Structures are given as structure tokens and as C-alpha cells.
């Protein structure tokens, strides 16, 4: 009897229990994860799945006759994103720090590949590599991560080693050079939205690294001069100029360029407090707003879920950013702080630009709403970023 009990016990508490116990232990990775951040991000992706479904269920020309086509894919993208996040946590940002040069080189190559015949133009931006089978890759999304990681690596190296209090000018120049290469390529695509995000990332990374104020001021000045030059030198395509013109005065051409922004505003405005109900948005079902499953997904929330639903998305984004700010503040290493700050700037600016354009307070630029918009590359990139944030949190020295 006792023997059998022993056998039973032995079987019951061997390996599985060991792993589970380890995971659930007081100082385990699972326990130390920022669950609020994770749940907020998951909630955003879940809302995104519903909104994407609502925007595409009737669009037979896009969903190939399957109303759930985009719903399934968005959920799959979220799943893959989660796996990538777990992988990132598992590897740890410190481990990744060593691989940064390789990752950087890889992403720059991918970005460059877009300029070769491999690249495709979607919605005026030559920013895609079509893989086939309905999949396509937007390398600039991953370039955002490698710019953050690469710059952080350079800027934090000597500080974290205890050599210096703040990064020196040479390091800053190197870091800027590192960022400049992919940014220049993305500008050539031209994927202006991504360039803007990257510029904000660079600024935030420099800020958080403790680089000299002169660099910060100089960089902002350079950005302004650059913008003026870009405008004057005709680097921009007509459609980009039109988008800005329509932003400045949406009534300018309500049937043309201003149409999209106007329809987007009508969609959101007509939602009222509680919205028209999921799947009941007339603007959405009527496809009056373009790119509604991707760049203009927020209009679906605004119309069908109203102020409460759309506000929830902003609140959830606020939760993600709040947790990210805490992670940036709480980590002991500058590397972690800088990476987190870069991610914060990325998420915050991209969300502001994306929602702002649907609300008519920002010019139209082709940027997805993090977690919510349909799109594999963007989804993967933001979840890798979540993985990085979690990794920074769990890998901080436990016993201090």
C-alpha cells in the first residue's frame, strides 16, 4: 500500500511539477511578468480582431468569400506575435544585445530588398515584400526595433560598463549614423509615416540615453530643416503633398483627397456615446472609409462602439504606455531604459498619428494602430516590443 503510494507520488511529482513549480515560483519569470501590460496589449489585439472582422466581413473582394478570413488571420497574427514575445522574453534582451549587430544588418538588408525588384508598392508606398500566399512583409516595421536596439546598444555600452555617466559625442554620432541608414532607405520608398516614427524614436532614444542637450536641440532643428528640404526638393510624391493639403483644409476637395478624412470623421462622429452597435455601422458596412481594417481601423471603433469603445482603446493604449514608462523607470541598466523609451516613443507617436488622422488632427500617413490594425509585420513588431519590455522587467537584478 505504502509502496504503491510511493510509486504514485513519485510519478506525480516528477518533471512536470518541477517545471510548473519553477514557473510559478515566487521569483519566477511568469510571476515577475507585467501582467497588466500583457493583458492590456492582449485586450487591444482582441478588440482589433473584432473591428477587423467588422470592417471586412462583407468585403468579398478582399476576404475571398470568407467573412472570417481577416478575423482568423488577425487572431493568428496575434498568436504569432505572442509566440515572438515569449521567445523574446525567453532569450532575454541581454542575450539579444549580443545579437544586435546581426539583427541590425539583417533588417537593413530587408529594408534594402524593398528597393530591389523584390519590393512591392501598396497604397503609394513602396514598402513591402510580397512573400506569396497572401503574406507580405513590411521590413520598416522591424527596422524600428533594430534602430532602437542598435542605438541603445551603442549609447548604453560605456555607461552600463561604468566608464561614463552619459554617452559621449562620438557614440552619439555613431548611433545617429546607425539610425540614418535604414531611415534614408525608408525615406526613399517613400514611407513617410515610418520615417516620422523613426525620427521620433531616435529623438526619444537620445533623450533617454542622457545625451547632451545640444544633440537634442540640434536634432530637432535638423528635423525641421530636413522637413523643409524634403518639401522643397520635391522628394515627396504628389499624393503625400495632397494628403497634407487636405489635412490643412479638409473642405478643399471633399470628393477627392479630403474625402477619406471627411468620411472617417463622419464615421467617428456619428458613433456618438455608445455607437451604432457592432456590425451596425453604416459608414463601415458602406465602405465609405478606406483601409478600414488597417490604417483606419479606429473609425470602426468610433462608429460602432462609440465614445465608450473608442475611448477604451485610448485608455488601453494609455495602460500599455504607463506600464512601459514604469519599466523604463524601474530598470537599473541604461540599455533597458533606452530600449523601453524607444518603444514608448514608437507606440505613443504611432498611436497618436494613427488615431489623430482619423480624428482630423493629424495629416494622413499610412501607419497602423499598434495591436489593433490588421497587418502581420506590424503585429509581430509590436509584440516583439512587448517581449522586450517584459524581458527588461523580468531580467532586472532580483536580489539587490
Amino acid at each position: 500500500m505504502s509502496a504503491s503510494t510511493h510509486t504514485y507520488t513519485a510519478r506525480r511529482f516528477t518533471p512536470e511539477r518541477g517545471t510548473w513549480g519553477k514557473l510559478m515560483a515566487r521569483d519566477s519569470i511568469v510571476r515577475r511578468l507585467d501582467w497588466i501590460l500583457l493583458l492590456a496589449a492582449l485586450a487591444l489585439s482582441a478588440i482589433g480582431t473584432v473591428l477587423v472582422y467588422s470592417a471586412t466581413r462583407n468585403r468579398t473582394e478582399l476576404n475571398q468569400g470568407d467573412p472570417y478570413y481577416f478575423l482568423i488571420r488577425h487572431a493568428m497574427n496575434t498568436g504569432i506575435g505572442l509566440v515572438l514575445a515569449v521567445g523574446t522574453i525567453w532569450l532575454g534582451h541581454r542575450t539579444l544585445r549580443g545579437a544586435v549587430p546581426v539583427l541590425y544588418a539583417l533588417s537593413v538588408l530587408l529594408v534594402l530588398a524593398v528597393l530591389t525588384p523584390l519590393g512591392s508598392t501598396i497604397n503609394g508606398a513602396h514598402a513591402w515584400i510580397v512573400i506569396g500566399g497572401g503574406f507580405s512583409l513590411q521590413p520598416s516595421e522591424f527596422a524600428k526595433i533594430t534602430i532602437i536596439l542598435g542605438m541603445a546598444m551603442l549609447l548604453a555600452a560605456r555607461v552600463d560598463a561604468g566608464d561614463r555617466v552619459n554617452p559621449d559625442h562620438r557614440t552619439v554620432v555613431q548611433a545617429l549614423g546607425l539610425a540614418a541608414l535604414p531611415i534614408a532607405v525608408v525615406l526613399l520608398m517613400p514611407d513617410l509615416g515610418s520615417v516620422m516614427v523613426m525620427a521620433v524614436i531616435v529623438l526619444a532614444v537620445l533623450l533617454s540615453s542622457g545625451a547632451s542637450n545640444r544633440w537634442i536641440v540640434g536634432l530637432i532643428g535638423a528635423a525641421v530643416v530636413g522637413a523643409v528640404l524634403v518639401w522643397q526638393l520635391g522628394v515627396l510624391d504628389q499624393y503625400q503633398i495632397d494628403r497634407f493639403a487636405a489635412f490643412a483644409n479638409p473642405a478643399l476637395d471633399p470628393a477627392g483627397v479630403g474625402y477619406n478624412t471627411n468620411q472617417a470623421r463622419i464615421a467617428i462622429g456619428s458613433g456618438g456615446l455608445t455607437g451604432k452597435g457592432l456590425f451596425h455601422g453604416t459608414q463601415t458596412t458602406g465602405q465609405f472609409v478606406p483601409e478600414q481594417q488597417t490604417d483606419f481601423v479606429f473609425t470602426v471603433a468610433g462608429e460602432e462602439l462609440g465614445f465608450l469603445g473608442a475611448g477604451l482603446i485610448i485608455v488601453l493604449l494609455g495602460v500599455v504606455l504607463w506600464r512601459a514608462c514604469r519599466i523604463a523607470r524601474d530598470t537599473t541598466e541604461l540599455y533597458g531604459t533606452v530600449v523601453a523609451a524607444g518603444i514608448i516613443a514608437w507606440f505613443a507617436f504611432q498611436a497618436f498619428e494613427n488615431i489623430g488622422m482619423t480624428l482630423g488632427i493629424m495629416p494622413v500617413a499610412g501607419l497602423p494602430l499598434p495591436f489593433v490594425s490588421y497587418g502581420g509585420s506590424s503585429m509581430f513588431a509590436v509584440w516583439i516590443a512587448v517581449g522586450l519590455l517584459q524581458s527588461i522587467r523580468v531580467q532586472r537584478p532580483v536580489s539587490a
Partner: protein
Amino acid sequence: MSNIPETGRTPRVTTRLVAIQIIVFSLLLTLGGRLWYLQIRNGDEYTAEAANNHVQQVVHPAVRGSILDARGVPLADNETRLVVSASRTELMKMKDNGKAVLTRLAGVLNMKPKDVLDKVRLCDAKTPQPCWNGSPYQPIPITDEASPKQALQIREREEDFPGISAEPTAVRRYASPGDANAAQVLGYLSPVTDEEIKKAEDSRSPLLRSDQVGRNGLERQYDDELRGKAGVTRYEVDNLGRVIGQAESQRAQPGANVVTSIDARVQAVAEKELDQAMKDARKEMDRNTGRRYEADAGAVVVMEAKTGRVVAMASNPTYDPNAWVGGISGKDYKKLTGKKSNYPLLNRAIQGQAAPGSIFKVVSSTAAVNAGYPFDGSYNCSSSFNIGSQVFKNFESKGYGPISLGRALEVSCDTVFYDLAYKQWQKDGGNKPKKHPADWFYKTAHQFGLGKETGVDLPNEVTGRIPDRQWKKDYWKANKNAWCKYGKKDGDYGRRIAYENCLEGMKMRAGDSVNYSIGQGDTLVTPIQMATIYAALSNGGTLYDPTIGKAIISADGKKVQEIKPKSHGKLPMTQQTRSKIDKALAGVATRGTAAWRFGGWPQDKIPMHAKTGTAEVYGKQTTSWFATYTKDYAIVMTISQGGTGSGASGPAVRNIYNALYGVDAKGNIDNKKALLPKPQAKLPKIDSDGSIEAQPLGKPIQVVGRRETQQ
């Protein structure tokens, strides 16, 4: 989480992290604020805009009500034609915008592919006809003359003809039952114009782009009732116009049927008789001009004497109202409105006006009596009447010596009335009129309802004219410049008249009054006015508003709105005077000017009353008038440039009476042959499904040419 680690960061980094945090959250706050502004503050505005975005109407036209005769026989109804139409929204979904489908369709319909493609394009400033002028969400008709075989081909091969429908559709038809075309009475339809849509926007019955509206006759008069209410389905559509949902649907309400007092059989007889009378007149030689009579236009009204209801109304020249169905061709339109065809669209029974001639004498007799001359007094019927150097001849009769007013009516003695009118003119001050002249002859005419509309339920009735003092003044003011320019003291007749008019055209001259008393000169009346007056003489003195519409019956037959006879006054005479005039007019038919036309008439059974009129028109041949009545009906006929009253119009009117009462040439009455010995009082029978039963038309009455000549 319990122990927050010490960080090795510099204060600079910490400060900057705080700054980043502040910036991030102010951005989010901005978004939240803007979201509130759009959704809560201005939400209503955007809701309205969103609603406008999507709703498109599709109109299901209401079936137009029928116009029926008194016995339920349709004069205007709808026939079902196979209409092939294309749905533009469906076609636009196709890769080639439906070109292949339309080309295939053209093959089936034996049309040119280009014609079919042109029909479905939308009209704009640059697109010439044919093009579609209606809503792009409306099915666009390609043809309304598809054969059943073609329709079947289209419907059986639905997969080959997506977006194409072949549906039986109601199209207006003017049936001309028993050859009663009644074109001017019925009127016609044509597509609604932009202005009309705008005008009707806020009215009780707003118009739709696809509507046809009545343009004339009963179609116009009873347009609101006949048209019904089109059904509208509001579809929600997407930005490309594709239907994504149905917002609301309103079924079409078919228009009401209008039952008229017209009897198709009598109408047919009246039309044929009028036409025959005019043809016959054209064979007659006019001794005054030395030419055959032109008989260029004519009209006849058959009215129920006791109600003012119109049993038949014909106007000649006429046309086929079906020319308007499905859009009139440019050629047809030109023909109908051209001078060469003498304006067949005019309904001369209510729009033709001419001097009445002697049929006006019932007015003059009444005026004389009202002025104090006894009806049975003795008045000298001389062969001519002089005012200064002017000689007024007895036109239709010779001298009869002293006679009563009644006899003056019978023999149509002009000089009796000349004399009475002249005396009255003198009493009123002559060339220096009193401040308040009695003007008995003019006053009485107005009391008879002349010089204004009778109120018949047809559009554009004209008033005619009583040339009283006021009119003379107004007319002179309007024309004196032309007269004074053209007039010459010793020019030809026209110039002399103009000269005279220039000098004293504002004045009521003795000659004017004298001429007026026998219905000549500037006096103008319409046939419907005279029919109203003669009907009133028959019915005891009530001047009824003539009506053609008798009842409006809703499409389901449940609501019947009768149109009751209305009067616009009483004849200004005592019953005594009326019965004396009545007797005199019977005398006209038996021994007076119309007697030769009523030879053998069963006067004892159906007392006939008549008055002839032959009006002179300067520069034209005489106008023939014939006004008659029995106790049931009044019939007035006129033929422009047709000759004398009894000569040109007499036989036709007699034949109409023959048909009504079943009287044969010998004066025997055969009630079986009588079309309508008593006016149709009852409305036709309405079946439970709302349809109205039509009674059989019977054999059409043959009309033959008459060879009789004037005495």
C-alpha cells in the same frame, strides 16, 4: 516587485523620462478630447451626415387610375406591356460595366448594341439623347415593346442577363371605345419637369422624377387623384452605390379611378356627327364669299340639363391621344401644335370662343323683359333698322310686322332687338352716358354667366367676352395706339373702322349696342357657356357648373367620392318669363328657324327647344351655332366658318338626339335603340376587388353624309 532596485541612472535621464511620460500622456489626452468633441459635442451633426451618405431611393411607380365613362367603359386606362429594363447598379458591378450583357440583350431585342448602351448612360450636360435622366438606382427601361418571346428568352437565361428584367408594366392607353376618342377631354401625360418637382416638394403629393403628370384635360384636372402615390424603397448603399440593406419600404398606392359623365357611345356619335357636319359644310357654297365653307373647326357639347354633367364633348380638328404615350415624337409634337393642323390640342368646347349670333337672343329677350318690356308686347319686326345713315338689316329673317318677343325669338327677328337695344342705349344717355347707366343688356348677360368661366372641371377654360362699357374702355386703352396709327378717314373698310375706333373706341356707340343685342360685334362666348345657359332654361333656371368628373373611386373600390353638381347662379328671370322663352324656343323647333331640321320630330313626346345662330365675323365666313334642349339634355354645336346655324349644325344635332332617344327618321321612338333616353344617374357597379364593371357598348351608330341643302 517588493523591492524596487536602485537605479544607477543620472538625474538627467530620470528628468527626461518624466518629460517623455508627460508628453505621451498629453498626446493621449488630446486624442480623448478630440474624440469627445467629435462624438459627443458634434455627434448629431455627423449622424445626420452619415445618414445622408447612404440612403438611396428606388421608386415603384403607382398604377395610374383609369378614366371611365358613365357606364364604366374605360376611356383612358393602362395596358400591360413587356418592359425590359436594366439595373445600372447591377451592371456597374461587372468588370466591363455590363457591356457584354447589354450587347447580348441588344441581340435578343433586335436592337443595335450602341442604342442599348446609350440608353443606360446617365444624362449630363455633355451627353446627348438618348440617355437616362432618372435616378441611377431606378431600373432603366430599354424597350416597352418586347414580345413575350423576347421576354421569355431574357427571363429563362437569367445567368446570361444579370441585372436585366423583363416585367409586364402598366402603360397608359387611350382606348377609344366605340371610336370615342375624346382626345381633348381626356388630355395627355408627359414626364414631370424639374420645376414641377421643386414646386410640388412640400405639397400634399410630391412628385418623383419618374412621374408622368397630366398636361391637359381630365388627366390634368384629376392628376392628383389619378396618379396615386408611388412606392419608395429606401436602400442603404455603400460608397460605390451597391445595396447593402433595406432601410424602409413604402408600397405604391394605385391611383383612383375617375368615373365621368361621358357616355362613350354618345361621345362617339357626337364626334362623328360633328366631323360629318363639317365635311358636309365644306361642300356647301358660301354665297357671301363665293367660296365653299371652310368649316375649319367645330365643337359640340351634350349636357345633362338637370345637373350640368357633360355627356359628350367633342372638338374638331382632333388627334389620337395615344401619340403621347411613351413620349411623343418630335414630328408628332410639331404636327399637334402647328398652325397647319389648326391646333387640334385645343378643346374648342371650352377654349373656342366666337360671337354667338342669334342664340344670344335669349339673353336679349330676358334683358328686355327685365328692362320693363312685356314679353308678350308688340314689337315691330321691320326688314331693316336705321340709326342715322347706318342701316342694320334683319339678318336671318325678313320683316314680320308687329310681333311678340317670343315670336321674335322663333323667327329670329333682329330688328326687334335692334330697336329695344337702341332705346336702352338712349335711356342710358346715348353718346353722353349717364353716370350710372342701367345697361340692362350687359348686366343681364353677366347674370347669365357670360364673360367668365363656367367652372367646368377642365383646365384652361376661357371666359369669352361681354363688350360692356368697362371692356370698351380697357380695350381702347390697349389698342388706341395701333388704331390711330393704322386708321384712315377715307381708307378701306378696315382702316375706316380703325380710324373710328381711334377717335371714339372708348365710347359705347349706338351701333355697338345694337349689334350686341343680336350677339354680334365684339361679343364672344364658348360652347360650354351656351350649353350651360340652355340647360338652365330647360331645368328651371339653375346655371350648373358643367362637370365631366362624376365620381372618384379609390383603386380598391372602397372609397367613392361623388362629384355633386354645383351651381353658379340662377337665370335672371321669373319662372313666367322662363316658360315663355321655353315655349318660344319650342316654337323655333316646330315652326321657326330650326323647324326644317326637326321635321317629324315627336314633339309631343320629347318636346324639343332650339335656337339657331349665324354669327358674322369680319374677314371670315359665318359661324354656325345651334343651341337646343329637351327636358333631359342640352346640346350646343358650333362650326367656325360653317354657314348658318340650322344649315350646318342642324342635322348633326338632330342625329345626336335621334341616337339619345332612339328616334328614327319618321319620328318613331324605339327605346331599344335609344342610347340614353334618361341620363345615367347611377354610378357603374364596383366589384369587390375594386374593379369597375363596364357595360357593353353595343353596335356603333352609322353616320352617313347628308345631301340636304339649306333652304
